[in-house]
């Protein structure tokens, strides 16, 4: 009789066992391997990334450059180190621009990287005062935002040698900009603007005022965007190039960041980083509809990573701010077998590429 009770207690505990993840803890440990260090510090927060010729650049506090197959090297900050923190940079195909914050005054300034790794400050002549916040580019056009007040911003684009004001109402100074091959698309807070030229963009779509658009991408004649509804839910949605609204994705409790498309062996994937929970991706589709692309999941050891499981686990809990697609073709369309990078917060830069025996993530 006593043995029966002991057996019942054992069964109770076994049945009570549960796991909130999709992987056994001991199993995950048994197959974990140490991820090799790259040449970049492991704890970098990568604000932005670009390619200029054979060189890759990242803004991660300092600006770092990787020339061809060489190791990453740090480019000295401007003005003797007074300006020391760069979180965004962009290129117009010729010059490289970066926004730097000053060490002591929190002042910001826009710099251009000239020959000999000399930073030259670029002044944006404007009737309105304010601090430079972000620099981005689309279709080889440089865009710069300036914060005028706590809730008001201004957006400029580089037109020849001068920065021209883009006449759209900006809430705050955060923005996204893309080019779909025909038009520029700019998002700010809950609104999307589009136009054939930066100076002629106008309202294309708007969400309820409580929403904040986090990312913007073009694919297959549609504009995809992520947004946060202000109550702990994030969504992916798309609109047609004409501005007609498409369907919503299922809501996610994670903060979704920027959105990108890649092409692996002819299959299209949507990628979307999250704030602290790795990234989401769409399921493998040969010629996916927008509805398929926004049907995302958060796999561990996902279909893009046939090998190197440990790296996938490491990224699974990272905050991924953005992806950089190194091979995006004209109009932002994904190129076959893209090599792409995950730009994380405090966990460095990661590269996903084909090793010849499968794709894997590797820390840069």
């Amino acid at each position, binding site marked *: 009789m006593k043995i029966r009770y002991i057996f019942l207690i054992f069964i109770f505990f076994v049945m009570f066992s549960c*796991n909130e993840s*999709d*992987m056994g803890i001991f199993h995950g440990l048994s197959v974990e391997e140490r991820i090799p260090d790259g040449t970049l510090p492991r704890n970098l927060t990568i604000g932005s990334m670009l390619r200029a010729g054979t060189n890759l650049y990242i803004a991660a506090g300092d600006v770092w450059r990787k020339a061809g197959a060489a190791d990453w090297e740090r480019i000295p900050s401007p003005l003797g180190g007074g300006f020391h923190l760069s979180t965004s940079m962009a290129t117009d195909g010729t010059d490289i621009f970066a926004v730097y914050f000053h060490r002591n005054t929190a002042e910001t300034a826009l710099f251009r990287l000239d020959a000999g790794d000399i930073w030259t400050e670029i002044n944006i002549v404007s009737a309105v005062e304010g601090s430079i916040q972000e620099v981005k580019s689309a279709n080889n056009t440089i865009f710069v935002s300036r914060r005028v007040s706590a809730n008001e911003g201004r957006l400029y684009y580089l037109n020849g040698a001068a920065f021209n004001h883009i006449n759209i109402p900006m809430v705050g100074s955060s923005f996204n900009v893309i080019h779909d091959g025909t038009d520029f698309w700019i998002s700010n807070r809950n609104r999307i603007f589009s136009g054939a030229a930066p100076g002629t963009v106008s309202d294309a779509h708007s969400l309820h005022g409580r929403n904040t658009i986090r990312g913007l991408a073009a694919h297959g004649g549609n504009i995809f965007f992520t947004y946060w509804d202000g109550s702990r839910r994030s969504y992916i949605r798309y609109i047609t190039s004409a501005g007609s609204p498409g369907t919503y994705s299922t809501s996610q409790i994670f903060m979704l960041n920027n959105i990108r498309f890649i092409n692996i062996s002819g299959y299209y994937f949507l990628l979307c980083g999250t704030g602290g929970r790795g990234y989401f991706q769409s399921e493998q589709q040969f010629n996916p509809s927008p509805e398929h692309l926004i049907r995302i999941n958060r796999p561990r050891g996902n279909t893009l990573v046939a090998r190197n499981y440990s790296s996938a686990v490491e990224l699974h809990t990272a905050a991924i701010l953005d992806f950089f697609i190194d091979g995006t073709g004209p109009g932002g369309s994904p190129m076959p077998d893209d090599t792409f990078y995950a730009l994380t917060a405090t966990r460095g830069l990661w590269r996903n590429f084909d090793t010849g025996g499968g794709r894997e993530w590797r820390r840069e």
Partner: protein
Amino acid sequence: MNFKKITFFCLIFSILTININAQIGDFDSHGFNYARGDQMFTVRAGILWPLFFATPFSAPPDRSAGIHSTNLSIGGVGALEWSSYINSRVTLGGELSGMFAFSPNGRVLYMIPLTFKAAYWFRRYPFEFPIHCGVGVSLNSIGGDSFSLDFIVKPGASAIWNFNHEWAFGFHAVYWWIPQIYTGRGRVPREHTMFGNFLETTFSAMFRF
């Protein structure tokens, strides 16, 4: 080792032995007669040695069936225990433990077992040698992302030196066996079933009341 050093250590050992013998005499005169209802509270701290994981299932292409390394660093462990005598030889009680260890990539594994514990006490004053076994559940988590609640069995043995009637200090060796069983009906596949094996070695301070 030269003659002087040997003499020195023999002298120190003799002094310590004389002191202990004096205390043994003191204890023997008091006697240790535990009765039902006597209680004790123990605090332990030490090292948890990850031994191995075992599984009857293969999970291609990652791993085969059999014995596998835990890939964990040596961990830290601590425990709080309360128990009570049901007769002079047997105690029953409960124990809350906690351990941590690091994966190769710096992820932290936490395990917090909560167990019922029974012990049988052998004695040779001023020493006691309980053998014991705990049974319960363990809350396991790694990296802040995975969590599981698993069954745990903790058989072990201890050597305890009684400083006086109330206080005692000891060394403990406890085996942790944690079957992490998945049926495959949830999100975790059945092939991820693994049996965790760890060895706890701890020092303790015990208070009887």
